[in-house]
């Protein structure tokens, strides 16, 4: 499926406080397309989970916010890129309760449940890219 990008912004995420700035930026974009409060909360929460991984495992990276449309619907697409060590076993990382750290292991699978489209690509030694899409 091809999407048309209507608006784009890239934000560097290197420290925890950048996460707040990013969350607020997503909120601004979501409000602009008059996304409902529940969907806003869902995508921002999903973004919060991914940003944590980006900081904790990827050593920081870039987060991009886009307003996209497929011609009928409008939504928010978020892309997170890091140049960290990558994830050796994606299936495992995507399963509930799996964590290499001390967390609950809800981050990736939880984020996936909160959005309409979820994509993760990872190459060991190169980095990880996560894409989230939520229609309004």
């Amino acid at each position, binding site marked *: 499926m091809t999407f048309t990008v209507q608006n784009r912004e890239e934000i560097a995420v290197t420290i*925890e*406080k950048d*996460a*707040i700035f990013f*969350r*607020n930026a997503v909120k601004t974009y979501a409000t602009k397309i008059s996304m409902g*409060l*529940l969907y*806003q*909360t*869902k995508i*921002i*929460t999903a973004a*919060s*989970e991914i940003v*944590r991984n980006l900081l904790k495992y990827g050593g920081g990276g870039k987060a991009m916010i886009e307003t996209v449309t497929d011609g009928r619907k409008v939504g928010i697409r978020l892309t997170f890129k890091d140049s960290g060590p990558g994830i050796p076993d994606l299936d495992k990382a995507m399963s*509930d309760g799996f964590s290499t750290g001390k*967390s*609950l292991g*809800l*981050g990736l*699978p*939880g*984020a996936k*449940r*909160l959005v309409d489209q979820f994509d993760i690509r990872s190459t060991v030694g190169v980095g990880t890219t996560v894409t989230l899409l939520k229609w309004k």
Partner: protein
Amino acid sequence: MEKIPILKFGEFLLVTIQVDLYDQLAENLEADLINLVRKHHSRGVLIDISAVSIIDSFMGRILVNIAKMSKIMDAETVVTGMQPAVAITLIELGLHFEGVYNALNIEKGMELLRSKIYNLDEDHDIYSSE
């Protein structure tokens, strides 16, 4: 270092989170609360999150941890004012709020804390009179 203020209110500790939460801030709150429960021999902790628009798995886990730790130290925890969108999102995320009491607002939360502690004390009395 940024901190969330904690108020002592009789035998309770009262926290109203009015800022955007991030991990370090939540972790500081957890440590501060546990220390104050010990210092003041508090019997209850009330955390109002009505101004919090995002709670993800990490912050949610901190709230559960606070409740569990307080419980070990003989204090009950009530979380009040959770926004509906936050509640729905937490469930979908897969986080279970085990061991945390919830109330609609601070007033109801206070009532709940008092009833918990009052009932517990009555139980103790029954034991001591035996």
